[in-house]
């Protein structure tokens, strides 16, 4: 990521974390440069004392902006929206703004937590590897059905019209994960498929992709 000047933002991220991906995408869309600091979740770097000081929950992403330290992708994105209002990710119309926040919530509360590694690991201990995969797939599909219903009358080139907004920022990594990790049949979700095709064409999306990150292991 070419910086025009010394980036003052620091983003703690893991290449495969879809929550980190949301923030990387938003930073790219807003044209904000940042320093990337990798946290290797597989090696347990989220449990080091240094990282624990930044985020006692041991999650990525974490954003550091001068004195301000923020964890949780939703909190980070709302902070960025307020502090760096260029290229807004929330429409000003209250109904559309609320819809974007609702989509973000569906992804961050109803889908992602039910397939994140820590949940699946715990579930695998209880029900076995096949069953935990089925659990993940079922919940992704349930969430996608909900999003499809919600967006089908509003979708344009992107989720809520013809500009990229918060809904897209949350959905893009989620759909990517669904197709690559869970082999979800996207033909069942025509609106989501259409949105994803549009987003995949954006350089900001490509640059924020896991494979393009400094800590990617190919």
């Amino acid at each position: 990521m070419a910086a025009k000047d010394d980036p003052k933002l620091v983003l703690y991220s893991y290449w495969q974390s879809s929550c980190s991906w949301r923030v990387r995408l938003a930073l790219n869309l807003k044209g904000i440069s940042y320093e990337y600091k990798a946290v290797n979740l597989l090696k347990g770097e989220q449990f080091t004392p240094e990282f624990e000081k930044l985020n006692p929950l041991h999650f990525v992403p974490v954003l550091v902006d001068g004195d301000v330290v923020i964890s949780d992708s939703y909190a980070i994105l709302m902070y960025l929206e307020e502090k760096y209002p260029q290229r807004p990710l929330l429409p000003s119309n209250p109904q559309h703004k609320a819809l974007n926040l609702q989509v973000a919530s569906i992804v961050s509360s109803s889908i992602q937590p039910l397939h994140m590694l820590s949940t699946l690991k715990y579930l695998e201990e209880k029900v076995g590897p096949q069953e935990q995969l089925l659990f993940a797939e079922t919940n992704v599909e349930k969430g996608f059905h909900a999003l499809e219903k919600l967006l089908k009358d509003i979708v344009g080139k992107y989720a809520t019209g013809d500009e990229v907004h918060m809904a897209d920022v949350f959905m893009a990594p989620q759909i990517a994960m669904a197709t690559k990790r869970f082999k979800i049949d996207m033909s069942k979700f025509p609106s989501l498929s259409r949105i994803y095709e549009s987003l995949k064409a954006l350089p900001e999306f490509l640059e924020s992709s896991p494979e393009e990150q400094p800590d990617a292991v190919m």
Partner: protein
Amino acid sequence: MAQQQNKLKLYSYWRSSCSCRIRMALNLKSLEYQYIPVNLLKGEQFSPEFQKLNPIGYVPVLVDGDVVISDSFAIFMYLEEKYPQIPLFPSDIAKKALNIQAANIVCSSIQPLQNATVLKYIEAKVGPDERIPWAKFHIEKGFEALEKLLKDRAGRYATGDEVSMADVFLAPQLHYGTKRFNVDMAKFPLLTRLNGAYSELSEFRKAMPENQPDAPLA
């Protein structure tokens, strides 16, 4: 500064902690509203009328004139913007982010992992004896996170001496968590103290499940 012109309508289920959040927010902001019960056990969320309001069938849903908003996070943000007279966010941007992060621990890390649907699944796949341990595990994990996050930042309430978003999202979870799943609250001195503070607020008490029009008679 918007005066309340239309009567707000809130579609809610007495026991839904997500609905409870908004009931609290409305009470704190002194906003009158018409309570419209949606009996989730009887499947009223699938009625054609409710599907028109929210095709996903979740409560709460807020109707404010022409505007229809679903999802407690989206509704909360809408209320904050439209009715700013009793703000539920601190003005400091970093503290605001802290509130969103705390709210999201509840929304994304606790509630979705112990809601009725997931518990039913666990009961079916693992057994009825696993229900409570599963819920207890995830609630306690989230409570540990909140205890760590807030311990140096709490005042009288979660993030200071004024009631704010974190409290609105935390209170229903504390109410729900402590009563049903054998959560060992002795491990969480800050949350226990906050719970005590919440029980003294009439706005919170009035929002509690047992005080709703659709709560079954004791």
